[in-house]
């Protein structure tokens, strides 16, 4: 870039950088505050705020959270639901996207229209709920996995990706006598690792962070995913009495429940925090492919 900046331009650029720096601060400060607060002794936090004196720090919140059954169960359930959901969504989307990417596939327009209509019209919450109930899927993992498994956006993403695979590869394989089955599993899928990865990550994160389907379809607390456990801790303020041992004074109980809020946020976000820096570029790529249509 060999643009020469005038003084005016340099001033604008400086302002530009200051604004961006402020934006970064606005995003970071609340996050850093929560992480720091999760290590604070609750009394100190309430009276002084964040302190950098190590003697004011405590791991009590984490001890309480890690020793809590509901939290542990929620964590395991969330892993189960998120992995299951990701596998089903990705497999179904890839399978559907491949025929739609094949030239001359009879019925392409019909199927595509059928999928796209569902992006704009839906039966709504109540009819879907009644259906899931009639199918006997309430309080099963299927209620979490199946109704949301079809995501038209994913199908479009995968189809776009498949279309980018050089057609000569298909032709060459066909000449060699390979069937559609062989071409799909031996040529197309191995070349599609990036898109598989993107779709799987999106599905996993989406399911990990959602609570709504679990709230309406799962009554049994033993089946609740992490987000519902978090909801009762963070929003309904109903700290599991078993979490804080026996006969503590009310004030103490309140303090500890504040503490648990911070540590539960950190613990529940841990898998995503760890993954995020490595996978950010893949997530970004997903948005890009999608916007090309």
């Amino acid at each position, binding site marked *: *870039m060999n*643009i020469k900046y005038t003084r*005016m*331009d340099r001033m*604008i650029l400086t302002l*530009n950088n200051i604004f*961006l720096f402020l*934006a*970064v601060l606005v*995003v*970071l400060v*609340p*996050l850093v*505050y929560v992480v720091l607060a999760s290590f604070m002794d609750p009394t100190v936090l309430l009276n002084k*705020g964040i302190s950098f004196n190590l003697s004011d720090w405590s791991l009590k919140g984490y001890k309480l959270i890690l020793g809590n059954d509901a939290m542990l169960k929620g964590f395991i359930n969330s892993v189960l639901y998120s992995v299951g959901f990701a596998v089903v969504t990705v497999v*179904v989307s890839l399978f*559907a996207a*491949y*025929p739609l990417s094949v030239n001359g596939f*009879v*019925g392409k327009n019909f199927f595509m229209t*059928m999928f796209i209509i*569902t992006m*704009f*019209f*839906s*039966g*709504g*919450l*109540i*009819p879907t*709920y009644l259906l899931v109930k009639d199918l006997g899927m309430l309080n099963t993992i299927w209620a979490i996995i*199946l*109704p949301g498994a*079809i995501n038209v956006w994913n*199908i479009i993403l995968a189809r776009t990706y498949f279309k980018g695979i050089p057609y000569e590869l298909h032709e060459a394989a066909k000449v060699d006598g390979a*069937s*559609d*089955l062989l071409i799909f599993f031996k040529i197309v899928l191995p070349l599609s690792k990036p898109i598989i990865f993107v779709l799987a990550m999106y599905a996993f*994160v989406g399911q990990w*962070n*959602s*609570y*709504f389907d679990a709230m309406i379809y799962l009554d049994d607390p033993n089946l609740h995913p992490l*987000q519902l456990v*978090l*909801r009762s801790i*963070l*929003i309904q303020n109903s700290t599991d009495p078993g979490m804080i041992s026996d006969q503590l004074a009310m004030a103490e109980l309140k303090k500890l429940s504040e503490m648990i*809020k911070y540590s539960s946020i950190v613990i*529940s*976000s841990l898998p*995503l925090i760890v993954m*995020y*820096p490595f996978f*950010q570029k893949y*997530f*970004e790529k997903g948005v*890009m492919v999608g*916007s090309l249509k």
Partner: protein
Amino acid sequence: MQELIKAEAGKDAAISNQAEIRVTKLSKKLRYIRENYFLYLLIAPAIILTIVFKYIPMYGAIIAFKDFSTIKGILGSEWVGLENFTKFLSSPNFGTIFMSTLKLSFYGLLLGFPIPIILALMLNQVRRAAIKKNVQLVLYAPNFISVVVIVGMLFIFLSPTGPINQIVTMLTGEPIGFLSDPDYFRSIYILSGIWQAAGWSSIIYVAALANVDPELHNAATLDGANIIQRMIHIDLPTLKPLMAVTFILGAGGIMAIGFEKAYLMQTTMNLPTSEILPTYVYKVGLQAGDYAYSAAVGLFNSVINVILLVVVNYIVKKLNEGEGLY
């Protein structure tokens, strides 16, 4: 006469010809399907799931026009025409809930739409790639935080004894009831939404700006244009098609505003502004069990949505030289 007969015969031949073509086309299609049955096997799971979980509920939405009882089932229940709809439209709640929904999303779109564009324009000016990357890393991060955690953080920060109110109390002597006062609900909802999504929404704009030909900028600089002028005359026009699509989709989704966050942010005191159509559908339908009425409210909501999408697309098309979503 003879000519007439000939003409008739010609017509017949043409018709049977067409029929033949149709038949061969059909048999060709059938042959294709037979030869490529594997492709149809692949797409089958998606088709089945779509029919079961998308199309059957669309059919199930007819309970909105019925006096639905779970015992009689969808078909067995009696038709009541528009009764459920008139019941909602004439209920005292209707005006408040409808306006709350509209305002919440309208203001959300108004504030939330320009910020990602501004962010992208600013990011585009950062010359050092490493810095740009790290800034993006931070700005995109909140997108991956769950709604429950976001609302949980809002509750912590804005509670009467939370860090923000500690400052407020120091300045004014008494805390502000951010979470209980209905006047604050919308601002909190929208601002926290921007905090979470603005960075992520800027991605597509950043990508579009990266494709601008640098020669354009060089030429403009030679002509004495400063950065702001180049943003307005080169960068913004590049983004225009994207902006149109994003805006139409946003406006079309105005009534489809997310249930999840509003429901979590509801307290008994902020209901006058926080009760919106989707939360109302949930409460009436799944908590109170009035399925038909709730389905009617839901259907009403979707219809308004489709109308909005069509109208906004029409307006944007007019303003944007014929370029719209469809």
